[in-house]
């Protein structure tokens, strides 16, 4: 069975139609990329999948393991194995990063009928995951994303993914604002999480990220629809031609 099936998905934001019929099937263990011009609806798609309030599905369906998730709250979807790495990670003053991560882990354990995670064990597990991503102890103590640089925020997103071990992750422009070194760290972190059971949808504006996270399939999203699909070579074509013809004028 496919892990994720998006069928004829139509969605509005504040009553405004943004997604206008998206079809996408993702098999276990595969990485799909979605590219597209700014404003084409990439983040909207990611929010609709994650279950954000105000993003209303007017037609179509999203299936996880063949079952619709549309009636599920965002937290229920996360427990079911979905994960969204935010394009703009949210700052939460007053909540320490570790407190936040522990709450997320315990939410999962509670749903699974398991006891809360042991504090020492949790820290040990966390240390292993932070090493790869260059997340310092100091970053763990700080409030979630508060005072983090752009790169630190993105690494923090991937750290959360590593801790929560989702079955399906949507990475929304995880490359934006990163220099090449930071990009490599993030890509290494993501690649380390690739597995035969885990699928990903990598959203990006630029082909550059896909040199490091090599996708199985590439789709082009323009004006709320998938207008082209292909292998990883499609990304290279787009790099050469730009999004002209896909709803965004070529940069002058």
């Amino acid at each position: 069975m496919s892990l994720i099936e998006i069928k004829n998905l139509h969605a509005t934001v504040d009553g405004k139609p943004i997604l206008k019929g998206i079809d996408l099937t993702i098999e276990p263990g595969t990485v799909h990329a979605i590219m597209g011009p700014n404003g084409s609806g990439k983040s909207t798609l990611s929010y609709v999948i994650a279950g954000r309030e105000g993003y209303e599905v007017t037609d179509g369906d999203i299936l996880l393991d063949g079952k619709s998730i549309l009636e599920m709250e965002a937290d229920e979807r996360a427990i079911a194995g979905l994960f969204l790495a935010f394009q703009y990670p949210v700052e939460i003053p007053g909540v320490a990063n570790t407190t936040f991560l522990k709450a997320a882990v315990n939410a999962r354990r509670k749903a699974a009928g398991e006891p809360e995670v042991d504090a020492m064990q949790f820290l040990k597990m966390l240390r292993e995951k932070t090493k790869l991503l260059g997340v310092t102890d100091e970053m763990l103590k700080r409030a979630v994303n508060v005072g983090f640089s752009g790169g630190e925020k993105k690494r923090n997103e991937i750290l959360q993914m590593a801790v929560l071990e989702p079955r399906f992750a949507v990475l929304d422009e995880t490359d934006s604002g990163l220099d090449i070194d930071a990009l490599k760290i993030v890509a290494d972190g993501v690649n380390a999480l690739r597995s035969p059971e885990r699928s990903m949808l990598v959203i990006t504006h630029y082909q550059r990220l896909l040199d490091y996270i090599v996708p199985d399939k590439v789709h082009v999203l323009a004006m709320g629809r998938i207008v082209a699909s292909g292998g990883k070579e499609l990304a290279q074509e787009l790099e050469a031609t730009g999004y002209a013809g896909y709803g965004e004028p070529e940069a002058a």
Partner: protein
Amino acid sequence: MALAARSYPGPLANRHAELSLKLAGAGVGWLDTLRADSAARYRATGLPTPKVEAWRYTNLKDLVGIDFASAPVVGDMALDSLPRASLLAVNGHVLAFVNGRLRPDLSTLDTLPAGVTLLPLSEAIHSDEQALSAHLGRLVEAEENPFVDLNTALMEDGVVLRLADGAVLDKPLHIISVGAVADTPLAFFPRLLAVLGRDARATIFESHAGIGEGAYLSAMASEIVLGAGAHLEHYKLQNESQSAFHVANTRVTVEAGAVYDNFVLQIGSRLSRNEVHTALIGEGASCRLNGAYLGAGKQHLDSTTFIDHAVPVCASREVYKGVLDDQAHGVFQGKILVRRDAQQTDGHQLNRALLLSRQAEVNAKPELEIYADDVKCSHGATVGELADDQLFYLQARGIDRETARGLLIEAYVQEALDEIGNAEARLPFQRLVGGWLKSRKG
């Protein structure tokens, strides 16, 4: 009645003559005079209506509608033990009062260090009369505050803490005031006088709580005098029972280089007003007036502060945060006066409120009155709701909505609790805030 009546008839106003005969220290000349003068003023002024600017947001109509009896006359209730869970959990010297009266059996006064005088007011009237007569009523004589006058007129007991120059109170003093609901609504008037000599240091906790359902009025008045270089940490919990009224007035003078560090958590009562006035009267004096208020149901919680920068090079810092649910009403009034001479004043004020329901309401009135030209003063005020993007971010990680809300509210209050510099003092407040959050759920 006149349309724009500026006052309500004050409860107990006409009973002073009869009550005063039974008060502790009745017959002590200077005290009789002090009480009688205050009673006369109170009778003349009554209690303010919202027509009086300072009381615009806090209406006392429910309070004045109650026929209070003065607690000392009725006597205290039988009470075997203190409601520990409603109090700050701190160790130290304990002076516990039930309906305004000292309960020696619930108090623990250990041996005091040299230079420290710590007495119940009812005893100090006799054994520490000279010092008492020199200070009692001095900080409040210049202003007309009917609640202070009422307190002075009918005060029966309280705490006198005096530290000689350089003296250090070895352990915190915990003042516990419990309102025990009786058949008649009671009013009681605890009094605190704290006089710290040069470079003296002390920590005072106050816990105000109640037992039983029903109305009572707790109207404390405090006078605090800090000599040059003295340091006072003053932490207060207002956790009165749900039908109680709590009106407290604190007046502080801070001499050169001295520090007044105050934090007030208000979570109890039906209506409360906590008013703190601090005068920075010596160069290099500073104060920190911080607090938090958490309201639910129909609670009305008022935090009113006044900081008087009277001389140069003083600093004040003020952070108040409120969380209001249901139909709760919060009031923050913060006035900072920088007098002409008070050059190089450093003043910072922040008050923020979080509304958890559509019917919850907050009135915030920051007021900066600056007459000096070389000053650094800032103030900020925000009122908001829980941020949708933060809630979504937490939920997107699997944290359910209720837990997510709890985390965000706790984080919000934490910003105010972080102003408690002393980690040991922060803990008991944290526990009470946590308890409040838990009681909100489900």
